[in-house]
């Protein structure tokens, strides 16, 4: 037998031995350790008699707490504490936080070993005891871990609490092990613009004027004009993020585009594990405009050419977009309408009409055509049903569509 095979066998045997003697097979419940470290790091929000703290333990803490390596199985534990000083019973909906969260028993089963009944029972009990205890009674506190799918950068924790014919949602930004920013990314964005530079829109008509004056397009790093800025989002980050999270949008790093001489402040796209999600990419920049104290964001939404059917290129080239950019914009609107947070919807003039027959070339060699409008989406935190959405009587998409499709017909 070739010596190399011998070595491999020896290594395999050694590995087996190591597995046998490792944590899981003779599971020992860890001695209570000093958990003040990560609890002190916790981010806290308090409102209307409800206080919420959340934090993600780092790798070392996580191993000390659970005695198993959760990261290996793609689980990120989130520690949560909810203090209820109201007179109502409160229930927390983990589905809103992560539609595919894990349960304690599901996790512990993954670490079960053959022929070690006692150890398996101990691990079950241990993980179970660490889980978050839902149903928070009046004037009491509940705490524990929710087992979520991992977020690389900061974790946006959106909490939907419900009670009898009552609901309230909270948003917290929790740093994770991999958060690379020295100060929090989102806080940095919000502090970026000093108050003396802010422009407050007095009413809707002034807002419309200001929005139409915003830059038409993004540009590449060397200043060549790129995709049209076709969306405006109005709302606090705490109100926008749950809306997007409910529709499965998550922070996703993408290649930079430039507006106001800086790359996008935030970029998101959709995630879903049951079926491939729509492939749209949204980049957004915070503007100096404020409307009723709410920040105004300008954004660009488009679809990489080929969408879900494109072959992933080695360099992850996203310079080529689907030429009909309005499709991505309309898909996003139609999706966000279901977020239960959109209160107003309207359209203002943007880049101006570009016909399909004479498409516009942009940096990287791609082309696009559009009706030239930008959508305006206004968010609030309270739950809004589909039928409550209000329409701003600005540009009418109907008129533009009529023209456009007449145009398409005549082109044939």
């Amino acid at each position, binding site marked *: 037998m070739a010596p190399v095979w011998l070595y491999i066998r020896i290594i395999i045997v050694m590995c087996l031995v190591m597995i046998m003697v490792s944590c899981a097979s003779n599971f020992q419940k860890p001695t209570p350790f000093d958990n003040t470290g990560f609890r002190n790091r916790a981010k806290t929000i308090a409102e209307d008699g409800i206080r919420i703290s959340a934090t993600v333990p780092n790798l070392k803490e996580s191993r000390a707490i659970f005695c198993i390596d959760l990261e290996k199985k793609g689980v990120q534990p989130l520690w949560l504490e909810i203090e209820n000083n109201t007179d109502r019973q409160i229930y927390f909906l983990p589905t809103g936080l992560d539609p595919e969260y894990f349960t304690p028993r599901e996790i512990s089963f993954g670490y079960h070993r053959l022929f070690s009944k006692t150890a398996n029972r101990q691990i079950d009990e241990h993980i179970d005891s660490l889980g978050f205890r839902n149903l928070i009674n009046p004037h009491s506190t509940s705490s524990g871990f929710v087992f979520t799918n991992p977020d690389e950068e900061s974790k946006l924790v959106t909490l939907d609490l419900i009670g009898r*014919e009552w609901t309230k949602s909270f948003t917290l930004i929790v740093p994770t092990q991999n958060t690379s920013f020295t100060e929090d990314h989102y806080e940095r964005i919000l502090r970026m613009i000093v108050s003396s530079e802010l422009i407050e829109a007095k009413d809707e008509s002034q807002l419309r004027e200001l929005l139409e004056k915003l830059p038409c397009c993004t540009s590449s790093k060397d200043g060549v004009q790129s995709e049209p800025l076709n969306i405006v989002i109005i709302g606090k980050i705490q109100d926008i993020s749950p809306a997007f999270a409910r529709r499965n949008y998550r922070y996703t790093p993408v290649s930079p585009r430039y507006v106001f001489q800086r790359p996008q402040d935030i970029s998101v796209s959709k995630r879903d594990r049951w079926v491939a999600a729509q492939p749209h990419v949204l980049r957004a920049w915070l503007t100096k405009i404020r409307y009723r104290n709410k920040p105004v964001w300008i954004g660009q939404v488009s679809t990489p050419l080929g969408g879900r059917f494109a072959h992933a290129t080695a360099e992850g080239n996203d310079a080529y977009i689907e030429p009909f950019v309005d499709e991505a914009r309309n898909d996003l609107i139609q999706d966000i309408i*279901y977020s239960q947070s959109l209160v107003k919807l309207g359209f203002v003039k943007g880049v101006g009409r570009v016909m399909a027959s004479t498409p516009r070339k942009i940096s990287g060699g791609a082309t696009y055509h559009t009706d030239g409008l930008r959508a305006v989406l206004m968010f609030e935190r309270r739950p809004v*049903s589909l039928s409550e959405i209000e329409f701003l009587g600005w540009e009418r998409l109907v008129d533009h569509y009529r023209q456009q499709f007449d145009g398409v017909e005549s082109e044939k």
Partner: protein
Amino acid sequence: MERYQIMPTEAGIKQAFVDDMMRIARCSNFDNTCYRLYRKKWEKVNHVLQRNLMLGLCLTFTLMMLGCATSFSPRPIDEVPFKTRAQTQIMDGLTVTVAVPTIEEAKAIYGVNLASKEMQPVWIDVKNEENVPYWLLPSGLDPAYFSASEAAYAFRSLSSSEITQAVYKRFQNLQFRNPILPRNSATGFIVVNRDEGFKALDVDLISRAKVRSFTYIIPDPSFKGDFTLVDFYSLYDNKQIIEIKEEEVLRSEIEKLPCCTTSKDGSGKGDPLNLVLVGDRNDIFPAFIRRGWHGTEIIWSKAIWRTLKSFFKGSRYRYSPVSPLYVYGRRQDLAAQKSRGTIHQRNHLRLWLTPLRFRGKTVWLGQISRDIGVKFTLKSKTISTHVISPDVDEARRYLVEDLAYSQALARIGFVKGVGEARKDAPRFNLGGDPYFTDGLRAVMFFEPRPRTLGELDIIGYWEIPTRVRTSKKSLFDESK
């Protein structure tokens, strides 16, 4: 043990698989060596099969290239008879008609096989007799629907730009186009992710003034779901139906319902029946589908085959069957599941129609559990069965939370069911898996959508679920 021969046809392999199951069943004790031998063999088959599949794919691809390069010839829509299965609903000035072509019909209409890319077209016709323009929201049909350009991209020809253009044009022309102008109509297809069994469709139309919501359930005649075995109309005759008006009467009637599932002959006590659904069929089932639940196929040979494949690959077979359990002497009327990543992890529920009617609405009794892994058993014909999470209340809780986002859940309450089983003294289901519970059943009331989270009513004067008692304290309690 005789030497194994790989039979060349799929039917042959299926037969071999069935034979092996019989052999395993004949083993005196289900010992590990026996199973391992067979598993090894089937892994090998799977490997060979995959290689054959690749070969087949290459061949098909070549054929496709040849076929595509010479012709792209969709048929006119009116020559394809899918509209005979159309369903129409009317609300004030809006008339909405919906139909779902079968795979073959879709192939004829589009000239390409959408099903090969897991896509499916839905045909919608809206007549607007009102004074305002309406917009159809395709996200209601499927949040991951495909725009015409994206779907067309999947079928672009690599060799001929003419054909590519023709494909794009065909997809654009067939596409449903917003808006639906006053006293006008709009017709077209929306390309969505393919579903088997039945398609539940939410058609939401929005205007400046209001929202109109329509819900359809459109069956696929080629799917063998549990529900296709049941004739819901003849289950109970008028004498057996119990009409209930008062909430307290409903509560006591629900408490009287069977506690658990049984084996086929009605003996034994299996999984606890921890769910009750109250509502119209058209309010309840689309709510599940909106949250990603799927019907399951009954166990028949094709389904076994597909489940087996997904077991080895760890892939998703969204419709893989659940084994039958019995209440009222019959197997589940309907089973649904929500797969989560792999076949080893899924939530599944079974439902039985009860003779109760609450204010005219149907009442369903059900059982939900969360699968956390797979084990091998002789108690089932398919030799493998799922290990359920012993914390059955957690699965129940998950369902309530999940449906809270479905826009159709109006009220929720809890009543007494199987009775408490503590963690240190668990009960066992018929598969031998332990479970513990607070012993309650969740009662969910469904209403026409849309409704928001804030409108969800919790019946506070019924039972309140508690955490199952345990002797152990949490880490943090000890550290305090």
